[in-house]
């Protein structure tokens, strides 16, 4: 229903969509109108008066940023009257401006500079003293220089309308108007950096790179962030081999130009001084720096020796899901073809495999939903109460849907509805939030399944599947479900009906399910829920599983797990190799003798004692990494890999969208892009007396690797949900083994339920090398609800002792209050949480072997300090 409107701008006709604003139409007509407060991401505010234009039949000049086009409109953007008005506005702005461009980081890309050149008068009638603001410390990351502010409020509006942090305000008025935080305090917020980027002048700038560059020196490289599975496009801006800052362009990329703190402030990890920069080998207990040639030879010799003595299956490899598609493809090729072992796994094992394996089992593909589907949906059912922290930009898509597309949001999570003061929280924005007991996600899925089954199930549900679900649910009562989840039958029925009856309903799942107990089964049950609701296979429907790593999806697609060859070719049980933890256990048994770890540190990610014992048994341990870790310390060979900023390749985000990353700087020191290392090793492994390795051609570029990888996928690439869905569904319905057990009641016993999870300011370990991020958080803290704290008379920052039920180990941590937590629960972010993770109970998924060790019952006590 596109209604087009034709108007005349500076005597030129343009036809635009109804609802377009004059300033945008003018741009299409080639007339850029000067502006400050207008920004395409924001609602019109028309506060700066810079964008005035003359419109025929209107008595006064109009603000083109807020005026919508209408049929037959005749607009002049550069008449004498207009220029005069703009000069006037400029005179007011420049009258108060310090004109300190030479020392302003915005210099060269400042809208005030640009427009002053175009519209400013050379002299000013302004004879009064300029206003001056005392400089106030605005925190470690953002510099506030209010003398430069033009009061356009873009920053405040961005923080409100887009991010929802609502951390900035507009204070006082008239010439003493300024923006800032509550009561002139330090800024506390999500630190997305958006206000810095959207400020048209140098009033808000980054302190992380203050005075470090002049804007025209910067070389820009567009690439993709590696801190989570959202797949945000960002631009690395560099001088020589130094990343000076990160920026993003409005409208560009899956993120549309928005970033989170990790993307914007996290670049410091790349050039960190502790990076590994030279290959090392351990020779007779000496740690030697060696040439690449020597290191390659040592690796090849070590692998060949293991194969010769113990057979190829004595070798295993685990690669990080932050490596590129090309790297993961080559690594699995090195393992499967050059070595001949089936034992290959990746970081996708830490939860994401549960989603991919279950969804491909049911639908034949895991590419079910994209960001566009979030905006198109009428109803979102979200099992990711921590989405702002884990996947901030996908959370923005959800916020945008509820604000601008009237989408209903149902959240289900072991969190309160309340938010932390300055961090947005989806349950807070939900149409209805269901606060469940910690660990009862599965029972909640059961509740919704039962409600929809007894309500209005989709007539398109395959009848055999319908019968199986009905049979499995039979005999379980809502009372039982309520005793596990704390949620009433009515709530399940209301939300279930709301979701199933919506025209387009979409499910989003996060780590509470993917890394909860038996996540694979939960994902199957969720897939069945979406089928039962008729919410799959159309735009605005489906299931989006949130990935923690930038390439978790790609890791599986490229063959980086034992269950799939490239292109999700599922291997039969007996052909499959070991998962990461199974390799560790096999090493402990003496079955695996050589292990190749790329960007993986099992001493941190898996039960430490068990891993330490196993690693001791190995004959040969290769670690390829960016930083020294507990595991690299034990390695026989350490190879320095390159970070995402130093190499090219592709990441596939959790929508299944494959995007290019590009080399912005050379690898640090002697480090090498991981794909080049694998390429060389593949050739080295082929080398014989007759065919020396120098004679073998390596891959010319990552594109050559990519081509080969795609060729290796018999179903073609990418596999989308298409006509095959029905076929796949029917097959699943026929073989499905739907089981539901009556859920265990949730018993409170005065102890706390602890969850270890992700912080908004960190991603795994890498981010802890970025000073931009460590200034926000650099230590382990335990979050607790203020009322629990009050009851126990615990102040913020006070030390408490935490011990896990059934273990004597005790750790001491400072407390931070958190309003979003349910009473009786605690939260610790994982990035600094090695000690606590050692204490928590550990299990693995019965199907996928995904390790679970993020939750536990703990007791908490005040530490009595004697003074």
């Amino acid at each position, binding site marked *: 229903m596109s209604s087009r409107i034709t108007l005349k701008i500076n005597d030129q006709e343009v036809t635009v969509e109804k609802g377009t604003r004059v300033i945008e139409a003018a741009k299409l007509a080639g007339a850029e109108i000067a502006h400050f407060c207008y920004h395409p991401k924001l609602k019109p505010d028309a506060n700066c008066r810079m964008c005035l234009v003359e419109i025929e039949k209107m008595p006064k000049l109009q603000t083109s940023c807020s005026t919508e086009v209408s049929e037959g409109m005749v607009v002049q953007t550069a008449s004498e009257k207009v220029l005069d008005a703009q000069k006037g506005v400029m005179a007011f702005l420049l009258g108060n401006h310090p004109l300190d461009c030479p020392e302003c980081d915005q210099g060269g890309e400042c809208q005030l500079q640009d427009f002053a050149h175009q519209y400013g008068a050379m002299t000013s009638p302004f004879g009064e003293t300029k206003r001056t603001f005392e400089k106030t410390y605005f925190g470690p990351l953002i510099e506030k220089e209010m003398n430069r502010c033009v009061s356009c409020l873009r920053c405040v509006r961005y923080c409100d309308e887009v991010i929802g942090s609502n951390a900035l305000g507009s204070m006082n008025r008239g010439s003493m108007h300024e923006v800032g935080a*509550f009561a002139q305090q330090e800024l506390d917020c999500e630190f997305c950096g958006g206000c810095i980027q959207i400020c048209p002048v140098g009033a808000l700038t980054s302190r992380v790179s203050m005075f470090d560059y002049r804007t025209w020196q910067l070389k820009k490289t567009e690439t993709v962030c590696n801190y989570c599975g959202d797949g945000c496009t960002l631009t690395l801006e560099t001088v020589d081999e130094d990343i000076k800052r990160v920026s993003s362009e409005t409208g560009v990329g899956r993120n549309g130009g928005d970033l989170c703190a990790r993307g914007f402030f996290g670049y410091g990890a790349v050039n960190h001084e502790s990076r590994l920069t030279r290959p090392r080998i351990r020779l007779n207990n000496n740690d030697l720096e060696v040439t690449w040639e020597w290191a390659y030879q040592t690796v090849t010799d070590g692998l060949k020796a293991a194969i010769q003595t113990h057979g190829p299956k004595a070798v295993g490899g685990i690669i990080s899901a932050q490596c590129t598609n090309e790297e993961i493809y080559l690594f699995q090729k090195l393992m499967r073809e050059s070595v001949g072992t089936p034992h290959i796994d990746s970081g996708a094992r830490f939860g994401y495999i549960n989603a991919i394996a279950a969804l491909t089992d049911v639908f034949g593909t895991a590419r079910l939903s994209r960001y566009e589907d979030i905006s198109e949906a009428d109803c979102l059912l979200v099992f990711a109460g921590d989405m702002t922290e884990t996947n901030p930009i996908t959370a923005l898509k959800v916020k945008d849907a509820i604000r601008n597309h009237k989408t209903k949001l149902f959240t289900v999570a072991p969190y309160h509805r309340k938010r932390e003061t300055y961090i947005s929280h989806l349950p807070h924005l939900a149409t209805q939030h269901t606060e469940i007991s910690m660990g009862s996600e599965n029972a909640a899925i059961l509740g919704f399944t039962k409600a929809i089954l007894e309500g209005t199930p989709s007539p398109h549900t395959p009848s055999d599947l319908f019968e199986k679900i009905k049979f499995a649910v039979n005999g379980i009562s809502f009372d039982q479900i309520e005793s596990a989840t704390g949620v009433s039958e009515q709530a399940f029925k209301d939300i279930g009906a709301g979701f199933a009856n919506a025209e387009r309903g979409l499910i989003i799942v996060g780590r509470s399910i993917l890394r909860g107990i038996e996540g694979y089964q939960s994902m199957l049950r969720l897939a069945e829920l979406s089928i039962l609701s008729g919410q799959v296979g159309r735009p605005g429907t489906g299931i989006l599983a949130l990935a923690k790593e930038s390439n978790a999806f790609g890791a599986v697609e490229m063959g980086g797990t034992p269950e799939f060859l490239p292109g999700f070719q599922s291997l039969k049980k007996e052909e499959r190799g070991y998962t990461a933890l199974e390799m560790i256990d096999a090493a402990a048994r003496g079955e695996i003798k050589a292990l190749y770890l790329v960007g993986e540190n099992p001493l941190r990610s898996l039960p430490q004692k068990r891993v330490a014992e196993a690693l001791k048994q190995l004959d040969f341990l290769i670690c390829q990494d960016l930083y020294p870790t507990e595991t690299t310390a034990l390695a026989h060979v350490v190879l320095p890999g390159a970070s995402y900023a130093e190499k090219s390749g592709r990441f596939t985000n959790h929508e299944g969208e494959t995007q290019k990353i590009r080399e912005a700087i050379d690898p640090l020191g002697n480090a090498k892009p991981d794909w080049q290392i694998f390429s060389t090793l593949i050739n080295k492994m082929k080398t014989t007396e007759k065919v020396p390795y120098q004679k073998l051609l390596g891959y010319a570029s990552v594109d050559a690797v990519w081509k080969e990888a795609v060729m290796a996928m018999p179903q073609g690439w990418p596999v989308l949900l298409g006509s095959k869905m029905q076929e796949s569904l029917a097959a699943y319905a026929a073989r499905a083994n739907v089981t539901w057990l009556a859920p265990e009641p949730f018993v409170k016993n005065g102890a706390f339920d602890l969850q270890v999870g992700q912080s908004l300011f960190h991603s795994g370990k890498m981010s802890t090398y970025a000073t931009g991020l460590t200034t926000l958080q650099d230590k382990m803290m335990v979050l607790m609800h203020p009322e629990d704290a009050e009851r126990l008379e615990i102040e913020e920052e006070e030390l408490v002792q935490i011990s896990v039920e059934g273990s004597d180990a005790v750790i001491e941590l400072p407390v931070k209050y958190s309003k979003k937590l349910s009473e009786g629960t605690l939260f610790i972010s994982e990035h600094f949480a090695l000690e606590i993770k050692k204490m928590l109970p550990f299990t693995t998924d019965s199907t996928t072997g995904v390790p679970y060790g993020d939750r536990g019952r703990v007791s908490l006590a005040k530490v009595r300090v004697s003074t």
Partner: protein
Amino acid sequence: MKYKALSKEAVARIEAELPKYPDRRSLTLPALRIAQEDLGYVSEPAMIDIAEILELTPIQVYDVATFYSQYNMKPVGTYLVQVCKTLSCALVGAASIVEHLQKKLGIGIGETTEDGFFTLKVVECLASCGSGPMMQINDRYYEQLTPEKVDQILSDLKEQGKSALATGPFMLPALQGQK
């Protein structure tokens, strides 16, 4: 949830207003007024309380509070003296009244006397332009001021707690039961 600054009564009054407004945020102005009546000024903890009640962030409340001169961001004396400085009053000598008040009270604009009785502010038009110069002390108007009248008003207030020179309340509805 416990509140840091507002009395139980003030919280109850704010909550009682909720049904009259389309959403919580619209209640920011009345909530600030109630807080000011409760505490004499809008303190930082009071704004945090209001944010909690209205499900806003504290800066969203602070933003609004700093825009209006009617909210006292600092504690004020028992009597808040606000003199109009806008054109009509300025033409008939508002400046000399302000000067007189400063001398008489021994304080500058925005300050409070040591005994805590008087705070002096100058404000924009109070809509009594026909009878300037004028000032508002707490909820009452005092119009067509002269230095002598001002002296009388100040001593009345200090000694008796009220002054017969108060004019109005023709511009203001009677404010019963409020300070």
